């Protein structure tokens, strides 16, 4: 026995079997990887890297630091708390003069403006006469613009003097720094992002709950009907799934308008008075109704594929042992559908968190989600760093739920139709 194990097993051409196996396995592994490699590279370059590049902007913004080298130099030699003296103003004057020449005062001012509002004009107006400043610079500059005295402006410039900053994450969480650099919440009226994030989570949860509530009976019906009938009804579920998102959103806009079909029907039935038509669109209701409709197939399909595998004999056995139909459903059937509920619910929640088009079209003011705010900062206010910080937070939440999905369901179990 000991002889057999100690003796090396070799292949026909004399190589040790273990090594030959390992070599052939390595070849096969490399082959499999080479098949995947082109697509992996494609996604990496055209998808993952761009997103990384975008997120990089959330903590890297050099629009001030690259345009104000003298001030950057002054801040690096003078630690926090040092007096804003003549030398600081001299650096400011030098930078402003250079900004005037390069026409970059607006760009640099915008970066400080994100922190202390109203400072962009401070930069542009002072830079206009910057080449005429004579020493002593402090008096000269303060004469033009009194606001340079504000320690908060200097605190903001110090913070912006390094291109790496967490300022935008503070802003995305409704926080700011006070004059001494301590982190404090922003003024009551300006706190919007945390509320919006909360609303996005809340709306997504409500939509997920509604989808499960409406999807469960349908999936149950489909799984208990004979194949032929189920296939017919399945078309009613799959048709919305294959219909353009914009078509479905338009359809809901048409239905929900105050002069639309639903209101007309309610008036005709006498449930609503003609002059008191219900406002169902351009608010939260519109977003919830349209998104539930759009995402419902994503709960029905996973629930259905799980329910199809549950043998009906279990419930029958429970009934024969004396359980009422409700107990049999609750104690025997429902627990077996949990994987489907988890898969469908998580998928809908993940997709709902990132919705943009439907809230933008039917959401009005209070049906907007975090995606709409990111789009606004990208397209209107052009505060790309703040947009990136908000995007990073949204992405983090989505990826956490994707990870949970992977643990509970497994991404390789994902199915469509």
């Amino acid at each position: 026995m000991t002889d057999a194990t100690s003796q090396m097993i070799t292949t026909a051409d004399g190589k040790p079997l273990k090594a030959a196996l390992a070599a052939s396995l390595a070849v096969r592994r490399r082959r499999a990887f080479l098949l995947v490699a082109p697509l992996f590279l494609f996604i990496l370059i055209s998808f993952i890297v761009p997103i990384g590049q975008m997120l990089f902007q959330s903590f890297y913004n050099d629009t001030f630091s690259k345009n104000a080298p003298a001030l950057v130099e002054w801040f690096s030699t003078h630690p926090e708390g040092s007096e804003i003296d003549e030398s600081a103003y001299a650096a400011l004057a030098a930078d402003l003069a250079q900004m005037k020449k390069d026409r970059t005062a607006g760009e640099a001012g915008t970066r400080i403006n994100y922190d202390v509002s109203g400072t962009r004009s401070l930069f542009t107006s002072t830079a206009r006469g910057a080449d005429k400043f004579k020493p002593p610079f402090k008096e000269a500059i303060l004469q033009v613009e009194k606001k340079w005295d504000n320690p908060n402006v200097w605190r903001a410039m110090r913070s912006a003097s390094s291109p790496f900053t967490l300022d935008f994450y503070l802003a995305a969480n409704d926080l700011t720094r006070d004059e001494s650099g301590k982190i404090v919440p922003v003024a009551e009226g300006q706190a919007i992002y945390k509320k919006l994030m909360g609303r996005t989570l809340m709306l997504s949860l409500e939509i997920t709950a509604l989808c499960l509530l409406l999807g469960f009976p349908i999936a149950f019906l489909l799984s208990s009907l004979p194949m032929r009938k189920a296939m017919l009804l399945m078309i009613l579920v799959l048709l919305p799934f294959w219909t353009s998102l914009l078509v479905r959103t338009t359809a809901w806009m048409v239905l929900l308008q105050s002069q639309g079909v639903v209101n007309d029907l309610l008036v005709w039935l006498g449930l609503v008075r003609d002059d008191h038509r219900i406002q169902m669109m351009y608010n939260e209701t519109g977003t919830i109704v349209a998104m539930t409709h759009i995402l419902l197939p994503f709960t029905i399909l996973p629930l259905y594929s799980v329910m199809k595998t549950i043998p009906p004999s279990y419930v029958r056995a429970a009934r024969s042992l004396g359980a009422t139909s409700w107990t049999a459903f609750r104690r025997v059937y429902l627990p077996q559908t949990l994987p489907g509920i988890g898969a469908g619910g998580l998928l809908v929640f993940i997709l709902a968190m990132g919705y943009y088009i439907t809230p933008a079209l039917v959401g009005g003011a209070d049906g907007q989600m975090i995606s709409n705010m990111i789009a606004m900062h990208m397209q209107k206010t052009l505060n790309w760093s703040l947009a990136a910080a908000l995007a990073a937070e949204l992405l983090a939440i989505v990826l956490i739920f994707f990870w949970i999905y992977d643990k509970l369901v497994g991404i390789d179990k994902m199915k469509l139709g």
Partner: protein
Amino acid sequence: MALPVYASPLERLWHYTYLVICALILLFLIAPIIIVIPLSFNAEPYFTFTEKMLHFDPSGYSMRWYDKLVTFGMQNPEAERGAAFWWDFWHNATWMQVTKNSIIIGVCATLLSAGLGTVAALGLTRPEMPFRKQITAVLISPMIVPIIISATGMFFFYSGQWLPIISLSGGVHMEWGRLAGTYAGIILAHAALGIPFVIITVTATLSGFDQSLVRAAASLGANPRTAFFRVVMPLILPGVVSGGLFAFVTSFDEVVAVLFIANHDQQTIPRQMWNGIREQISPAILAVATILVVISIALLATVELLRRRSERLRGLSPR
């Protein structure tokens, strides 16, 4: 789902209530899609059924919105409907141009994602594939990452000047160009967004594939190439096609990436709809919606037929 004979009256009552609830939910699912169809034939510029439409009076219905779709953007919409009119339509009508763009972008993006995706799915389903889970997660991510984040990322990426372009104007020289505002840029973006659907569908098909068929082919003297094209390919083709259809629909329906990286020349159908809905919503949008619903019915029918064929080929369905 027949009621068992031993059901109590209360259970019977619940059973019928349940059926009614199901009918209502199915109505909720399908009604919004169906209702746009008659409304698109409205003779009045309203989004609801007029008195005449409810009485099935032919004068309550008209093709005016479809007419508007055809003539919108044309140079001479009043012309006689002859060859000159249709020439004008083909070259100038706005909806014709966006349809062409949608088809060009959709087809190219689909070919790219279905090609790369199928090859990758072949690798991913091999048992010896290293880091399978992690790589699948990366390949699926375009479906999971919120579209606004993907679109902004692509916006920065495609706005960067790193694309070498060989210019022939004034002697041959190379310059750096950007992908934003080109067909290539949108095709690449849409291909990335469509890949998860191809991966999911083709891996699902391949997981039901009997690997011993390949060995059987090899034992009968087929080389790997022949085995692939004569044995594997015909069996997984339905999966590939339905994955490709998913990718096509994704591109055909995508508006956010187009919003961020396309310029005026690459407007697509959904982008034009987005304009129409945001600015002045008119029943002409419903005419577009109706056409798109008809297209999606055709696509759904194709996918269903493919799925049944694939199941029959694999001997799964009891016919």
